[in-house]
């Protein structure tokens, strides 16, 4: 206590103190302001009907039922495709290729470049490749696959980091016990690498669920309840964009939809970090 006081008497220390606390306070305040604004404008419009009813009058009235279903389906397609490919590639990069390996280096480099590509480029690619070349048209499938391409780099890189964070002694002990490569991978390395995978998943899902540019040309604008994965379906973020930027008088429902999106994101992040701490990770710790 005495030490702190004496340190703060120094003007330079004061400046640093103010700067550090000021920036931290600024960041927190920005987040609170944003959340508060959405809550203030959106909360009164949220109801069970809003969550389940179809939009009316271009989204000014009615709810977001079909849009939530479309968003969930797009996200489902995205994860169903990106998770197996992502884990597979990460295993290859982390466990079967050395750091110096040319193929590994090139794969990593291309993934890093892909991770920085703007989403509109993925959207145009998805539009040309999935919608036209593969003939999927404007559909939830096209949208989900485009998002999968977008999410893969993040997912692979952080899962790879997860694998690399597993101590070498695990692998050596497994080898000493005579466990096969596959057994070691499935029962030891994969559970131990789960936190890395979850970080990638949270970042990826966050990017995917908030995506507008990549989806407007792939999964489309139709706000009807989707009947199959080949139907066009409007994602929540596109709905918010359209309501706030293209439909006059859509602001109230745009705020309410934004609130739903933020809550969804918090729920997904919360579940993932809960799983990382208590669920899946415990498996390896108790062994």
């Amino acid at each position: 206590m005495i030490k702190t006081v004496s340190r703060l008497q120094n003007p330079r220390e004061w400046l640093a103190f103010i700067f550090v606390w000021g920036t931290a306070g600024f960041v927190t305040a920005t987040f609170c302001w944003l959340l508060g604004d959405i809550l203030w404008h959106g909360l009164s419009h949220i109801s069970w009907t809003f969550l389940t009813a179809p939009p009316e009058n271009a989204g000014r009235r009615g709810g977001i039922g079909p849009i939530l279903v479309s968003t969930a389906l797009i996200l489902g397609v995205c994860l169903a495709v990106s998770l197996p490919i992502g884990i597979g590639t990460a295993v290859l990069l982390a466990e079967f290729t050395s750091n110096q390996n040319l193929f590994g280096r090139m794969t990593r480099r291309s993934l890093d470049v892909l991770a920085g590509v703007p989403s509109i480029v993925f959207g145009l690619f998805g539009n040309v490749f999935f919608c036209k070349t593969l003939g999927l048209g404007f559909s939830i499938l096209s949208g989900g696959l485009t998002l999968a391409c977008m999410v893969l780099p993040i997912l692979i890189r952080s899962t790879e980091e997860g694998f690399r964070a597993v101590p070498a002694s695990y692998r050596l002990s497994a080898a000493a016990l005579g466990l096969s490569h596959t057994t070691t991978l499935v029962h030891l390395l994969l559970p131990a690498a789960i936190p890395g995978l979850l970080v990638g998943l949270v970042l990826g899902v966050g990017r995917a669920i908030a995506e507008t540019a990549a989806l407007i040309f792939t999964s489309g604008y139709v706000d009807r309840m989707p009947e199959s994965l080949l139907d066009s379906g409007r994602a929540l973020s596109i709905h918010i964009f359209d309501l706030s930027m293209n439909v006059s008088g859509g602001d109230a429902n745009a705020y309410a939809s934004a609130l739903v999106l933020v809550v969804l994101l918090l729920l997904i992040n919360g579940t993932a970090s809960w799983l990382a701490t208590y669920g899946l990770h415990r498996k390896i710790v108790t062994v």
Partner: protein
Amino acid sequence: MYRYLDRSRKKTDHLLRLVLLASLCGIPGAATAQTPGTDQLSGKLVVTGASTLAPLISEISKRFERLYPNVRVDVQTGGSSRGVADARQGLADIGMVSRAMKDEEKDLHAFLVARDGVGIIVHKDNPVQALTDEQVVAIYTGRVTNWKEVGGKNAPITVVNKAEGRSTLEVFLHYFKLKNADVKAQVVIGDNEQGVKTVAGSRYAIGYVSIGTAEYDESQGVPIKLLPTGGVTASTETVRNGTFPISRPLHIVTQTPPAGLTKAFIDYTRSKAVHDIITQQYFVPLVD
């Protein structure tokens, strides 16, 4: 954004043509409308184009789907240029174009759906009540940069312009005989609502948006006001009776003469049964 799209389109054109042949049946939209049965229509229509028209056509198609439960009308957005391109390539059954048709687009069959006026807006607290056409041109070309030169307060003018490819921009430039390169804008925006928000949030801004949008926002208390053009009040009423000078037609287009489901949908869109939807979306229905 749209320009990029167009360019990438051209590059992939050859590939597309080949692929289209192979996958024509695979593209749900290209599966052309089926001929109407006795009384019951069925099939799927794909409509793409102007974002201005998308909410309107979307609402009309919902009512159409309720009328004919076996019909699905998918409305996609992306801009007038895309409406034209998709209708031409056969990627869409119907394209939406929120401007007059150009000479090089004469190969398409265009149908007028409604009209929309483009009005000049300023902040509500701006004391300027009217601007002559010359003053608007002077402001948008950067010759007049302060409100006091046109009878307002001593404050710099923030010029809000629309992004390239937007029909409102074309309508505006056409009326004032300007080229986009001549416009000295501080802010470039996309959709109408974005224009309203920009002007409402900046006391000394000037912009132009769809009159229906501005009229609605004004009635909701958004701090903007519509300025008259050529001495005519900017309102949906003057757009309807044709006296307001800056107005634009809203078209839907097809590549071939419409038949079957496409024809039924176009006829319905132009019928009196949807006038209430057109008014609801702040456009002006055609005088019949």
